[in-house]
Every structure is written in C-alpha cells, then in structure tokens.
C-alpha cells in the first residue's frame, strides 16, 4: 500500500483571519418601580445605550421589563453559555462598564490559569524539542558542567 491519509478537521483560530465576537446577545432588564433600577432606567433613556448598540451591530440588544426585581444585564455567547450581572443601584456609566465587560467576555467559565502557560500555540516550536543526543555534549566535572 502506498501512502494513505488520515482525515481530520482544521481548527479555528479566531482573530487570525476573521474575528468573530463571542457575545451574541445582550438582554437589558429593568423595573419601573424599584429604586435599584434608577440607574438602569436613566441608562436606557440616555444616548449611551444607542451609541453602544450602534458601535456593535454584531450583538443583538434586547430590552425588556422584569418587574419587582433588581435590574440585570444578561449576555449570551456563541458557545451556548450565558453570563448575568446584577446592576442594582449602579449609575449609568457603571452599567455601561458592565455591558462592556459582558461584550468582551467569551462565555467560558472564569478559570484560574495554572502552570504559568498563559500563552499557547498550535505551531511546533522552531527550535524543536530538546533531546540529549544532539548539540554539544556536556560533561560533569565535580560541580561544573563543561562542554566536551
């Protein structure tokens, strides 16, 4: 048999070609009566929300009442997860910050990055994996390592 091939799929690298914003939808919920919604109600009437929506045409923006509860912002993401932030008693500028936080998130669970490997790569290292059989061989003399 001559050379055969293995079928695999290519993997996406978001941002290498096109960048797909991971936030699909933002829901803004407010209440007409509760005082904790005061900031949210001013935010929804201010030009801030319109400017935010115009700057991000790739995000669907839903605004709906949620009576007798605190106001929230809910972000829905491409990976199917959602993130909710309660914005009770916040000013409109603070609410905008929270909306931006949800916009920038990718929907993954917040996890601690362990092991110091904060940057990963799909490509092989240019220098290759170190192996003991190549390059200058070393000798250990006493407590010193000397190239032989």
């Amino acid at each position, binding site marked *: 048999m001559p050379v*055969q091939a293995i*079928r695999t799929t290519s993997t996406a690298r978001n941002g290498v070609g*096109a960048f797909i914003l991971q936030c699909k939808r933002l829901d803004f919920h407010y209440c007409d009566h509760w005082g904790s919604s005061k900031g949210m109600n001013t935010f929804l009437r201010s030009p801030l929300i319109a400017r935010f929506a115009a700057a991000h045409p790739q995000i669907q923006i839903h605004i709906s009442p949620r009576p007798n509860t605190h106001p929230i912002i809910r972000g829905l993401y491409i990976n199917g997860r959602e993130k909710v932030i309660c914005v009770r008693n916040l000013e409109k500028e603070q609410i905008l910050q929270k909306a931006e936080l949800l916009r920038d998130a990718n929907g993954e669970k917040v996890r601690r990055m362990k092991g110091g490997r904060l940057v990963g790569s799909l490509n092989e290292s240019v220098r290759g994996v170190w192996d003991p059989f190549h390059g200058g061989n070393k000798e250990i003399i006493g407590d010193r390592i000397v190239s032989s």
Partner: protein
Amino acid sequence: MKALRLLRRSGSVLSPRTRPCCFIHQTQYRNPLPLNIFRLQSTAPAQYQSAIEREDDLEPGETEPTEDFFHNAPTQEERESILSQLPSPHPQHAHKSARLSALHARLMLPPRLPLETLARCLVDPSADIDPHFNNSSLSILGYDLLGLYTSEAVLCRHPRLPTEVMFAAMWAYCGPKTLAAITREWGVEVAAAPGGEVDPGYLQCKHIEAGNASVEGTGVQVKDLPILATDPKGKPMLGEPGWRRGVSSRTVKSDHFGDEIKRTVLDYAERPELRQEDLQRKLEKGVTLETASTNFVRALMGAVYLHAGKKAAYNFFKAHILSRHLDFSKLFEFRQPTRDLSRLCAREGFESPVARILSETGRKSRSPVFVVGVFAGKDKLGEGSGSSLDEARIRAAVGALKGWYLYSPLEVNVPSQAERGGNWEPVMVDGGEVVV
C-alpha cells in the same frame, strides 16, 4: 486573463422571484405597501425593487380599490396563519430580523450582500423545495469556489503532496465536518422546524429522524428497520456503484475529497426526473444538521461571489477557511516507509538509502534509545529515534519522506490571483507520490 462579467451571469439569481403561494399571499395578505403584496426573493436591496412592479393582472389604467386595504386589513392571527402557509420566511422579513443583521455584521460580510440573500442562504432545500427560494443554486456555486480556492492554496503551497493527502487536506479545510463546525463557530442557530413564521435569522432545514429514535408503537429503533438495515451483499464489484477505484481515476471522477459522486451530471441528463425524486426524498426524510450547515456555508460563499465579486469572495475564503490551522505532517499514514523511500530515491536519481546509527544509549537496559539517520550517499535525508533499531529506522524513513513531500516554496502564487487583477505566474506542481 479576461475577467468574467459577473452581473450578466448572475442575473437569474439577482432578479425578483414569485411563486403560486405568493399569489395567495397577495389576495389574503393585503397591505397598503405594494412591496408587501408579493414575495420577493431577491438579492437586490429592497428599496431598488421598484414599488411599481406589480404581480396582479390589473391593467395599467385601472386603479386598485385602496380604501379596501384599510377596511379589510388582516388581523394578527390572520397574518400569522398566512405566513405559516409559506415553507420558508418571507424575504420581506429579512429586514425585521435582528438575528439576521447581527449575523451579517458578525461575519463582516460586504455591505453589497443584502440581508435577503443571507436569509436565502439559510434556507435548506429540505425546508423549501422551490429552487428560487432555497440555497441549492448558491451552494453549488459555493462548492465549486471553495474547491477551486482550497485546492490551489493546498497544491501551490505543497506542490509534492501525494494525492490521498491532498484529498485529506481538502476535506480538512472545506469538508462537511469543518463547514458544520464553522457554522457553529459563527453562532448560527438552527430552527426546530422550518416555516414561514420563523425568524429568518435561523438556519432552516427539516431534521432527519435520529437513528436511535424508537418507532411509534413498536420497540424498534429507526436504524433497525428492515428498509434501512445494511445490505448483506458484500463488497461491490468492478464498475458497480461504491466500488473504490484507483487514486488517479478519483482525481477525475470523484468530488473534491476523493469520494464517489452519487449522482453525476450525466445521470441527471439521462433521467431528468431523478432530480425531482431526490429532492422529494430530501423533503420527506429531512437532512442531517451537518448537511444543512455545509450547504449554508457554501451558499454564503457563492452569494458573496455573486454580489461583491471575486476579490471579496477570496477575502471571505481567506478570513474564514484558509486561516484555520491544519498540520499537514499529521495527515500522512505510511504502511512501508522504508520501501517507499527507496522507490522515491530510485525515481529521483539519488543513491539508494542506507540507515546508519548516529548514537545510542542503554542498549542493554530496559529503556534503550537509538538515533538512526537515513543517508543517500553523503546526504542525510532524515533522522529518527526509537527504542529499537527498527523503530528508529522506520521513523527516520518517515521523516525523510515527509521532508520530501512537504516541501513548500518560499513565495507562493496561486493561479486565481490573475483573475483578481494580479499577474499570472506559472506554478510548480511536482510528480506527487511514488507508485509502489
């Protein structure tokens, strides 16, 4: 190279369409705006679809009884029932869907691609059988474009790739599984069932019944039904459908991925009724999500090409398909690499390859390591390490073969760049794999 006149060829796709049910629509779903009267599938933006265009048989002198519109205005329920008669959403609704325009913006589609066409790309033939309203024609065009761009990108970057590996690379870049993944990564949602009342931003297809769903009234699963059970006939004989031909004939007679084409153009030319039968079967049985997503991505590629031109289509391809990561060296599977290497050396006129130990450690221990190099005369072709001499030798041969097959020129020119206004330069394509 002379550029093709796109608009002249794409006229049939870009013109407004109607169908009998649109007339039902016209009579029942009266609306003061003439635009809402008939169903436009079209690809030119709505405001250019002239408001003068009329679907009815009224003489130009006659006037429509406009006051009736307001008296007979349909209620919300009536509208919904009329809409639900349509197999796929009305093109007019494309501009009302936030989901659709968000998708348009998310993919950074060229502004010349209207929302109506994006909505049409999302309608699978299994949802709407009418070829004027589903994405079948666009997806045929997109399939060919994807095949062209991917094959030239792969072949010009790796001119010595074996044919089988070339097929696998094509499959990895634009095969159905990858396109289905792309659809998911774009955030396209799928409608539970197609229909006229559905938001046009959803991918619409009729879902095929799951194989492990139980058939009503019986305890049998769908996949175990006698009509679906696999034929115990055994391997197909020479000339029968399903018979695997050699690699070189597959480059001519198969699809882009080296798979057999079930229905060729010739089949359809001989028996034109086959096309309708196939469509009917699809409509009754439904399709898998993978098929529907594949058709969607292909159709979108075709639509970008028709509306925005070659440059935009190539940029779209580069941004979404070519930018994906694929390690070519992991696509190879050698059965007898040492034999392949000696045949390759004979073909290329090198001296026959010899394996020599470069270094070793722990020969008598339980974990020895040997480093073996494959040499043709004085040139080292490859090197490999393993815990036995044979393993190291085979790895060295594989390394040497991959080094040959994965050669990539420094400057890559693809033939289609001439079509987009660049200079045409001939590309080097090598002989491919050795025949053993």
